């Protein structure tokens, strides 16, 4: 309860800070450039959650503890939501600054490919009847898919012929190169921390929900085997002794 109140207050604080900061300098639409506070943190944090998903996947493959599989799935789901948010807010930023929702800017393209890769993770996860195989395959794909994330984020936009097409150069300098003034820097870091805390909480809730539903399933199966289940019996036990 305290965590929820804290997150609500922190979110409100960031929203108020967003409206109080003056329009950004050096952008085509200075008033709309403030969407950076809600665009850059999800873009940065989605990779963190994808990495955590890969780490939990590796732990599942080593220890075969189902809790790690639940955590891997939860991390990738949260990362996917953050990736979608980054893509959508990026499109709004692109329309405001560059005149079109989609410009095939290298960073826009990278995040779209990331979205597609992790969408296919969910397709893969639902393609198996055998749950143990599904977990092993999902964990392997979570690790394999993450191999492309550093390439998409750092390497691809920096290949010279591709970097020349980038419209992000000025924004990169502003956000990462220390070009923000103190008000912006404070609001940006506040937004980053609040979004991280909010989505970490969501991750924990999701992982706990998966653990609980798995425990319920196990209990139901145990009750069914012991004959104490309240569910409808499909097979009735038969005595092997005949009364002759």
């Amino acid at each position, binding site marked *: 309860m305290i965590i929820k109140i804290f997150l609500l207050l922190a979110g409100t604080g960031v929203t108020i800070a967003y409206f109080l900061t003056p329009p950004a300098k050096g952008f085509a639409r200075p008033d709309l450039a403030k969407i950076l506070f809600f665009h850059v943190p999800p873009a940065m944090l989605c990779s963190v959650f994808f990495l955590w998903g890969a780490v939990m996947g590796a732990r599942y493959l080593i220890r075969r503890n189902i809790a790690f599989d639940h955590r891997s799935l939860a991390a990738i789901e949260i990362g996917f939501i953050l990736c979608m948010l980054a893509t959508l807010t990026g499109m709004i930023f692109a329309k405001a600054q560059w005149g079109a929702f989609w410009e095939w800017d290298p960073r826009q393209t990278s995040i779209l490919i990331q979205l597609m890769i992790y*969408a296919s993770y969910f397709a893969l996860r639902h393609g198996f009847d055998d749950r143990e195989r599904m977990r092993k395959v999902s964990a392997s794909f979570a690790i*394999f898919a993450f191999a492309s994330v550093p390439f998409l984020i750092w390497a691809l936009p920096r290949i010279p012929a591709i970097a020349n097409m980038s419209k992000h150069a000025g924004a990169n300098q502003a956000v990462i190169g220390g070009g923000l003034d103190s008000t912006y820097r404070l609001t940006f870091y506040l937004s980053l921390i609040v979004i991280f805390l909010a989505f970490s909480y969501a991750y924990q809730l999701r992982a706990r929900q998966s653990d609980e539903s798995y425990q319920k399933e196990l209990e139901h199966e145990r009750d069914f085997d012991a004959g104490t289940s309240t569910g409808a019996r499909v097979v009735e036990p038969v005595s092997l002794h005949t009364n002759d």
Partner: protein
Amino acid sequence: MNSIWREIIAVIWKDVISDWRQKNSLLTTFLFSFSVTVALGLTTTKDTVSPTLTAGLLWIAFLFTSITSATRSFLSEEETGTGDLLRVLSSPVSVFVGKCLYHFVLLLLTLCIVTGLFVLFSGVSVKEFGLFFAVLISSSLALSSGIVFCSALASKSSGRFALAGVISIPTLIWILAPGITSLRISFGAPTSGGLESVLAILGMGIAYLALGILLFPHFWKQ
């Protein structure tokens, strides 16, 4: 010779013999690549095409040809029931490396044929052969290791053929950006960055191969 290399060669030889005997998979690959090249050639119809557009069209052919050919690497093993035989007779690492090497060579040959046909149909010419072959070799490595791994992941699923394609395309679509960049430079586009693009593709190909060797044993055995 080291036993693992003997197993790898045995896996490669098994694929060579089985594809040569049945021929339908090889024919499918080459006919598909031929059809795609003809279709793309028709779109240009000998009009002067820029190196960028040529590289882009060619890469579409590369991507879909490689997905059609390499996804059957493990899917056909499950269809024909020989997957269990491979599990018993060979170590997982030699199975994976053998499959990657076989499909690397097959893909390289297919991409050379596709490019040759496209050059014939579109009238475009290769200006930098060194860069051009470097692109083909690095792309074949990245595509074969990535698609073979995705095929292995999907091999025991329901709807395996569709699923293998669905997970392969996003995993490898990034290759279009550096691939088109380096290919258009080899066709004479006045830009730089060809070598960096080739190195990026090669690096990712090696990363996919290494990850595949590490991860494949975890889900290959029953």
